[in-house]
């Protein structure tokens, strides 16, 4: 039925089966959109956030998907700037994933703020001292860059490129794509950092506050490093999932190897930097604010296990598994290691967002807990559903994996 739209040389499931695959995701999207409507129409009283837990599930997951979406900018950086040509095999997929992550995060932010129609105020009356201003500017610009990077993929569709004007447009866009990759890298570096700075500057929250390096708190640099380290792992993990779900080999083995090598090496640097930062924070920053760092871990369930899990189990362990050639080349270890690395960045964002707000600041404050409402959970699941649908449609009709055709024609090993 839709054969004329499918990329040449690729086999795809029958249209009916494809629609059947989309149905549950569309249902999830529908429920989530209804939940989002409730939040927008009736107000944020539909959530379980409150005056003490002013940020909740949405901010945590926004920070996490933006970190994971860093795969787009960092793969672009490696391909176009560091000339790692092998990554041309995954750059299209990485761009789509990046676009999904960022557009999903922006959509959730639009529900999360109390007055979404005033979002333009930040551009008109910006407070240049606020990390959130930096985040807003960079996020908006980078989402535009991602949309521009997504455009050539669309224009290369069989039917669209039949129009000569579209073909010329795509060709011209392709020529400047390296510039957009560079701009995207610059913007990404800044907003990943600003998201870290968002918490690092909170002098009123000693658990999150960090000393400054140059003009930024150390979390600014740690967020950049962790996102750059985990981005390639997320590209690896998603490519593996797509291979399993579609039942096709999409990229050559050496592409996985390169992604894992880059991710592992950067993760090792990150773990080292994070360890140094933690030691400085424990031995200097906390005491300078008059807080014994032991009190941060005195409240269950956030014991020191959380710190150990974040730095060692979900940091050092995947870093070593990905960096060492022997473990990296073992398929049974490679993919779990990539997932562990992604879980590590999710854990770090959880600690920064949720643990920071749960811990008391005043002497007579209680330790607080928070459980998201179904509206919060469903709204976020709608983003997941939107991502799966957009990715599935892109995978079906666009050339996300240039090596797929070549690999499909090879005899099975």
């Amino acid at each position, binding site marked *: 039925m839709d054969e004329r739209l499918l990329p040449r040389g690729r086999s795809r499931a029958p249209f009916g089966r494809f629609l059947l695959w989309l149905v549950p995701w569309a249902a999830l999207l529908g429920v989530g959109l209804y939940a989002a409507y409730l939040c927008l129409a009736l107000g944020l009283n539909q959530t379980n956030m409150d005056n003490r837990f002013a940020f909740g599930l949405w901010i945590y997951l926004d920070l996490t998907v933006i970190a994971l979406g860093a795969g787009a900018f960092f793969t672009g950086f490696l391909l176009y700037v560091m000339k790692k040509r092998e990554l041309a095999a995954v750059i299209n997929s990485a761009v789509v994933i990046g676009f999904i992550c960022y557009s999903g995060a922006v959509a959730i932010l639009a529900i999360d703020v109390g007055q979404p129609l005033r979002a333009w105020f930040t551009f008109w009356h910006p407070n240049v001292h606020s990390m959130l201003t930096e985040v807003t500017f960079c996020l908006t610009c980078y989402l535009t860059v991602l949309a521009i990077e997504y455009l050539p993929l669309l224009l290369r569709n069989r039917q669209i490129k039949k129009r000569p004007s579209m073909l010329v447009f795509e060709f011209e866009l392709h020529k400047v794509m390296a510039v957009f990759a560079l701009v995207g890298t610059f913007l990404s570096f800044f907003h990943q950092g600003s998201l870290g700075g968002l918490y690092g500057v909170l002098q009123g929250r000693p658990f999150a506050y960090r000393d400054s390096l140059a003009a930024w708190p150390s979390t600014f640099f740690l967020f950049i490093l962790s996102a750059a380290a985990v981005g390639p792992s997320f590209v690896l993990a998603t490519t593996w999932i797509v291979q399993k779900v579609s039942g096709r080999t999409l990229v050559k083995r050496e592409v996985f190897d390169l992604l894992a090598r880059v991710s592992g090496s950067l993760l090792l640097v990150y773990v080292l930097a994070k360890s140094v930062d933690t030691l400085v924070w424990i031995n200097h920053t906390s005491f300078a604010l008059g807080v014994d760092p032991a009190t941060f871990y005195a409240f269950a369930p956030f014991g020191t296990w959380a710190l150990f899990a974040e730095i060692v189990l979900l940091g050092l362990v995947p870093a070593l598994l990905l960096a060492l050639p022997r473990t990296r080349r073992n398929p049974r270890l490679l993919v779990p290691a990539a997932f562990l690395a992604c879980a590590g960045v999710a854990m770090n964002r959880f600690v920064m967002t949720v643990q920071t707000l749960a811990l008391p600041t005043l002497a*007579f404050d209680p330790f607080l807990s928070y459980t998201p409402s179904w509206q919060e959970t469903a709204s976020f699941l709608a983003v997941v559903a939107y991502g799966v649908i957009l990715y599935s449609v892109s995978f079906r009709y666009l050339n996300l994996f240039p090596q797929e055709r070549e690999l499909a024609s090879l005899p099975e090993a």
Partner: protein
Amino acid sequence: MDAVRKPGGARYGMVIDLDKCNGCGACAVACAVENNVPPAPERANDRNGITWMRVHRLEAKGEARAAFLPLMCQHCGDKTPCVSVCPQNAVEVDPASGIVAQVPVRCLGCRYCMAACPYHARSFNWWDPDWPGRLTETLNPEVSTRTRGVVEKCTLCSHRLQAAQDAQAANGGGTKPPVYTPACVEACPAGAIVFGDLDDPESEAARLAKAPGSFRLLERLGTGAKVYYRTGRDWVRRLADGRAAGDGRTHG
């Protein structure tokens, strides 16, 4: 962000005597009525209701004695945690009065200022404000009501300051910042709250702020709060800020 001070301006603040406060809550009620804080909806609780001023009960475990601590925006001075974080300048420090103002019409409702405030002195409008029936007749025409989706907090009754400035100007002006009284100070039956210009050596508030036994909450964070507390009882001091009298700096 370091606050800028206007030469000749005031630095309004208050000193709350915890040994006089009996926890009656009159200050909180007066504040709510004066500033058009809407009645709480049915589903509201102590964590999502709007309270510009809240009276905390300080109680040591296993002990029968208790003290009360009224808490509102501390109007931080030197390094205001909320001002620098707001992306659209909806939080400002007035250089002429030192009052940390929230500008609800500019507020995006991102709640970053709430996450930044160590005193949890800010409230978000989770619901549409509603004054059912003839309760609208209780609204104070001097204070704007706020909409759903914005943050609000204590303004040190800045509308009363405005009225005092107008009165001073009508009477030929003066060289000194005007004297005025916020609603909570007026309502306290125990006289536990003293308000005034902390830079004016003749004001009672300035004298008490510097007197032994006065302290500020979370002094160690360097927020430069303009609300001081006083107590002569060590156990109250310990429950209020985790320290005994004499530990660290007690006044600034």
